[in-house]
């Protein structure tokens, strides 16, 4: 109890409060700029944390990341430029809401569902961190392989355009992810002797090209619209009823995101994609998905931030980072003498409790800061269409360039923008391509490792209990789609034959 009171005292210090407020504002700013990620915001903060005490240093990272992830939803909702790979899972849905005149509600859902998800993740982190971390550590390459495959399968099967087109889009993404050094031997694949290609295809320029550039091109030909004909209203108007209506989705997304986030390496990206798929699967109105329906947004938004909080579980308990952000944070913890590990909870409990309190503040701050950001961002819709198109292109250029400081990435943005333009014109979904690029390396690494361990015996993929469960679930998902498609086809044939007899 003393430790908790001391922790409150540390957090209440003016320096810590000022750091939380400033880092949140910085995260909001960076996250809202298309192409700049939460990881980049965190990395930029590290030099500043050199001069801080341990708790404010970690507080800066926690609050900046939480805010940047949520702020990434703003360009996603308003301009169809996802801020993070996780928000790419529901970018089309959120943008469809904006085009229906519900942009304010979409942003409100993103902000509040993220805050609730983040708090849920925090609660789990506070009470079950050691237990969850132990479970997570039991995951081997077999479980990770199935988890990645399940995520890819779900995203593909629920995508618009049908299984055939969704699968081809996913395979395209997986192919793009294989360009560059292979994870096992380090040999170059499909690089055609190019040094730039040997580093692989960065997903940030890929996302910008596929979502933003393709939208500008579609708008230019009159087959799309770069700017929705609507204004952003109060983001919290009507929000309560949506959250109450989809409370199960909110809980499911938060819980699932926490579990996924606690797995080192899986991170929130996979959580948001699977959550969105689950939301459609369990929905009473799955046909509304993709048309600007808030249900998937609630679940995936909550999953996104709960995973972010939960990613700190393996980071704090075992020093194993859950994602890129916590990898940076683990470095800062070491630098400040707070070596991650079980002893952190016994030797420095007040500092850990202080960090946990910061989680709560950071997630609560999202609501007023998010509201302010939305109010400021609504001026975007008052801009004339041609100026907005110019501004979007300026952000596309700088966002693609800045991630690696290379012109090559602008070329990647252009190439993938053209690909997405072609794909959308021919009813191919583009989200599975992005997921393939993001999750492909995780899938390949774990697949190859498992194959080596199993000496090529595929049955070994079902020998461990959790792996077997995930494997069976993946097979069931695919089987249900194939059987469902076959049954639908037969029914359609029968109806056509029936129609032929009547006429």
């Amino acid at each position, binding site marked *: 109890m003393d430790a908790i009171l001391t922790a409150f005292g540390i957090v209440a210090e003016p320096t810590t409060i000022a750091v939380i407020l400033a880092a949140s504002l910085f995260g909001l700013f*960076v996250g809202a*700029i298309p192409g700049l990620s939460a990881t980049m915001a965190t990395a*930029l903060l590290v030099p500043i944390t050199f001069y801080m005490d341990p708790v404010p240093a970690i507080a800066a990272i926690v609050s900046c990341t939480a805010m940047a992830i949520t702020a990434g939803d703003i360009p996603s909702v308003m301009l169809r430029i996802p801020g993070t790979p996780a928000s790419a899972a529901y970018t089309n849905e959120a943008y469809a809401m904006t085009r229906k005149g519900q942009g304010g509600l979409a942003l409100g859902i993103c902000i509040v569902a993220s805050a609730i998800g983040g708090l849920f993740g925090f609660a789990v982190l506070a009470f079950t961190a050691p237990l969850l971390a132990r479970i997570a550590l039991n995951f081997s390459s077999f479980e990770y392989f199935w988890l990645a495959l399940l995520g890819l399968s779900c995203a593909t099967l629920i995508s618009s355009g049908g299984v*055939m*087109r969704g*699968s*081809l889009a996913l*395979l395209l993404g*997986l*192919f793009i992810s*294989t360009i560059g050094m*292979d994870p*096992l*031997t380090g*040999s170059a*694949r*499909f690089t055609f002797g190019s040094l730039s290609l040997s580093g692989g295809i960065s997903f940030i320029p890929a996302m910008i090209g596929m979502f933003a*550039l393709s939208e*500008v*091109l579609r*708008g*230019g*030909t*009159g087959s799309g619209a770069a700017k929705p004909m609507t204004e952003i209203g109060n983001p919290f108007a009507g929000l309560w009823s949506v959250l109450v209506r989809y409370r199960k989705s909110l809980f499911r997304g938060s819980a699932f995101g926490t579990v996924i986030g606690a797995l080192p390496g899986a991170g929130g990206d996979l959580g948001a994609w699977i959550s969105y798929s689950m939301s459609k699967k369990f929905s009473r109105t799955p046909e509304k998905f993709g048309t600007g329906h808030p249900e998937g947004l609630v679940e995936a938004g909550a999953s996104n931030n709960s995973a972010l909080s939960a990613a700190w579980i393996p980071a704090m308990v075992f020093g194993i980072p859950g994602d890129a952000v916590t990898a940076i944070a683990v470095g800062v913890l070491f630098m400040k003498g707070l070596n991650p590990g079980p002893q952190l909870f016994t030797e420095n409990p007040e500092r850990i409790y202080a960090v946990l309190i910061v989680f709560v503040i950071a997630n609560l701050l999202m609501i007023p800061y998010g509201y302010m950001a939305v109010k400021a961002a609504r001026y975007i819709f008052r801009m*004339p*269409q*041609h*100026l907005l*198109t*110019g*501004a979007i*292109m*300026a*952000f596309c*250029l*700088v966002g693609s*360039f*800045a991630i690696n*400081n290379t*012109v090559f990435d*602008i*070329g990647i943005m*252009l190439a993938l923008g*053209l690909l997405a*333009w072609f794909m959308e*014109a*021919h009813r191919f979904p583009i989200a599975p391509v992005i997921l393939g690029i993001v999750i*492909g390396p995780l*899938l*390949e690494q774990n*697949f*190859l490792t498992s*194959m*080596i361990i199993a000496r*090529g015996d595929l049955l070994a993929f079902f020998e461990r209990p959790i792996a077997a469960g995930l494997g069976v679930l993946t097979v069931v998902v695919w089987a249900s789609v194939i059987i469902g498609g076959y049954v639908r086809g037969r029914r359609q044939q029968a109806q056509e034959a029936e129609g032929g007899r009547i006429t």
Partner: protein
Amino acid sequence: MQIPDLIIGLAFVVGGIALGMASFGMPGLGGQMVGPGLLPTIVAAGFVLFGGGLALQGLKSARVALPPLTVLSWQALRVPTVVIGGLLLYIAVLEPIGFLVATTAYVAAVILVSGGRLVSGLIFAAAITLGIDWVFLNLMGVPLPAGIIG
């Protein structure tokens, strides 16, 4: 222009075969049945399988009715042409002439072709470019190519 599913499906099949051939040629790990070519081979097989399926679907629907060929007019292709052509030029000149000049010119061209006016487009393009450059340089410590101005 809409390309029929049959053609797209067949393109995936051909691409899959080419990818499969390239993947088979990759060196494996000594004594292991896995190697750098395994995932690309699986992807290639998927291209052939699903591409073939799409081609078959396209063939069936082509029997019912051929989709009308719609060719976009020059007017409709004006914006994409400037956006894409301008980007190719931008990639070529960004480092020699610098971010400020190249981005201002490119953004102004995009605004102009999208229906804006030259003067207001140039002013807006210069303002947004300067703003971005200032934020990256001063707030984030990320210098953008200076080119002829540096």
